[in-house]
């Protein structure tokens, strides 16, 4: 079998879950149309567009900041100079992860008041932790002999990080980012509770008013966004992680 057909088959395999999801989505839409809920949802078209934009800003700003700072922090903790403090810090990070996200948002509200800012900060913290943990773990898992070989060939510490350590940890780092972004997108609706806006407004108001059309008008875009974000980072993981260290592209 040629490399081309093999990689095509692998691509198909990696796309399969999304095809299944699309089929389920179609079935749901059919049910909604059949029950008449679809028209109820469409009544909120303008709200959906406006709140989705708000929602995207929440996710993009908090998620983007978390990816940048999380990878940076993970790298910093993995450096030999930090070895004495790294494990303790990671333990603290693990404990912080176990605080429910709603609790984190409530804490942010007490510290920063209400509005988008505390929501973004809360989401940032919730998203940060898995990225730090995975970046640190991924870098620590790079075999010592690779670093030894790189050093022995005259690579500078920075070149070793950039060309050996990070590429070899990248798959695990991406796994952390995907977990983190799933948490981020899933938690973003709660931001409404501390005045952060977003699609949570339709969901929570819909629940309170027992307006299922309104609730679904918030819930369905949230779900679609979650799938889209995971698809995006899944594709990035597939294409950006070098083939030699990418389990998705080797089987």
């Amino acid at each position, binding site marked *: 079998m040629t490399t081309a057909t093999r990689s095509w088959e692998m691509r198909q395999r990696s796309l399969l879950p999304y095809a299944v999801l699309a089929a389920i989505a179609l079935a749901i839409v059919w049910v909604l149309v059949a029950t008449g809920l679809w028209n109820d949802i469409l009544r909120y078209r303008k709200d959906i567009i406006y709140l989705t934009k708000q929602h995207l800003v929440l996710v993009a700003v908090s998620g983007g900041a978390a990816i940048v700072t999380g990878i940076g922090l993970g790298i910093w903790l993995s450096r030999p100079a930090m070895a004495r403090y790294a494990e303790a810090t990671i333990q603290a990070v693990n404990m912080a992860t176990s605080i429910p996200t709603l609790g984190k948002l409530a804490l942010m509200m007490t510290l920063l008041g209400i509005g988008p800012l505390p929501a973004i900060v809360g989401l940032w913290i919730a998203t940060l932790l898995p990225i730090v943990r995975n970046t640190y773990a991924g870098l620590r898992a790079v*075999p010592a*002999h*690779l670093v*030894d*070989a*790189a*050093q*022995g*060939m*005259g*690579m*500078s510490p920075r*070149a070793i990080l950039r*060309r*050996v350590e990070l*590429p*070899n940890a*990248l798959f695990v780092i991406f796994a952390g980012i995907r977990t983190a972004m799933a948490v981020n997108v899933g938690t973003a609706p709660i931001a409404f509770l501390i005045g952060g806006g977003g699609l949570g407004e339709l969901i929570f108001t819909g629940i309170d008013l027992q307006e299922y059309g309104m609730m679904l008008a918030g819930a369905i875009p949230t779900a679609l966004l979650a799938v889209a974000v995971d698809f995006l980072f899944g594709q990035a993981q597939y294409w950006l992680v*070098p*083939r*030699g*260290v990418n389990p998705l592209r*080797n089987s």
Partner: protein
Amino acid sequence: MIRLEALTKIYPSSHGGAASVDRVSFEVGAGETCVLLGPSGCGKTTTLRMINRLVAPTSGKVFIDGRDTSAVDPVELRRTIGYVIQQIGLFPNMTVAENIGVVPRLLNWDRPRMRRRAEELLAMLALEPAEFLDRYPNELSGGQAQRVGVARALAADPPVLLMDEPFGAVDPVNREVIQDEFLRMQKSLRKTVLFVSHDIDEAVKMADRIAIFRAGRLEQYAAPDELLGRPANDFVAGFVGSDRTLKRLRRITVGDVMSPPDAASAPDAPAVAPGDDLRRVVTLFLERGVDVLRCVDAGGRLVGVVTRKAVAARLAAPANGNGPGAPLR
């Protein structure tokens, strides 16, 4: 040329710290292969790693071509020294071509030159360039990976090669093959090689000189023939084994022991070539029950005879003609 002067490494520990390498001095001539040999924990790897300064010496100096290596930036120094380790350490995120190109890239070679060099090295190591250049390390067998590891170390044509049990992870059959390839290559490249091993047979096969270590000290530094023929002490004798005379046969050639042909040489005696080693000679003595062999060159001309007596005389008197055998003090 590499010179070690009273090289010492002491790792600090609660009870003061014993030296893992204790005032080791020796000299390896340009183009020679020196095997550092000894049981594990004897300091041979630490000694090797002090040469490219992956380990900083506690005291003592290393000179390469007369230049004190402590005066050079370690990162720059390492780019001029090839380095091969037992785990090979090919970077799994890079293709074979990229792995071989690591040091050239650090030296800012242009891409076509890096590519050409990788092709050239793979061909030299009996790997078809077109087939292997774009493979990833996880698509190589152990022996192939080890060859690529050697190619990577040779990429920027460093005059010095450090090899830490380079063939230790390869199965015995392939190890022999790779050793032979390396010897053939070394014949034309004439690198100055320091090679760590714990295998006396490998050392006898590969080395121009062997440095035997015990507990951080250099016990004997000599050519294989002298080491086997005249071990400096009981430790060395024990380490090289009771069959050390048999081991010597590998490194002595017919040319070393033959005498000019005379009229009396039996015309029907079995024939050997001047480049054959004494293992073949002794095998023929025993199998054919003869005392004399004819030595013929590639053209079939008689160039000498080998007698049992000459072999015995050679084994009784270890060669001293191989330069200074004793470590520098």
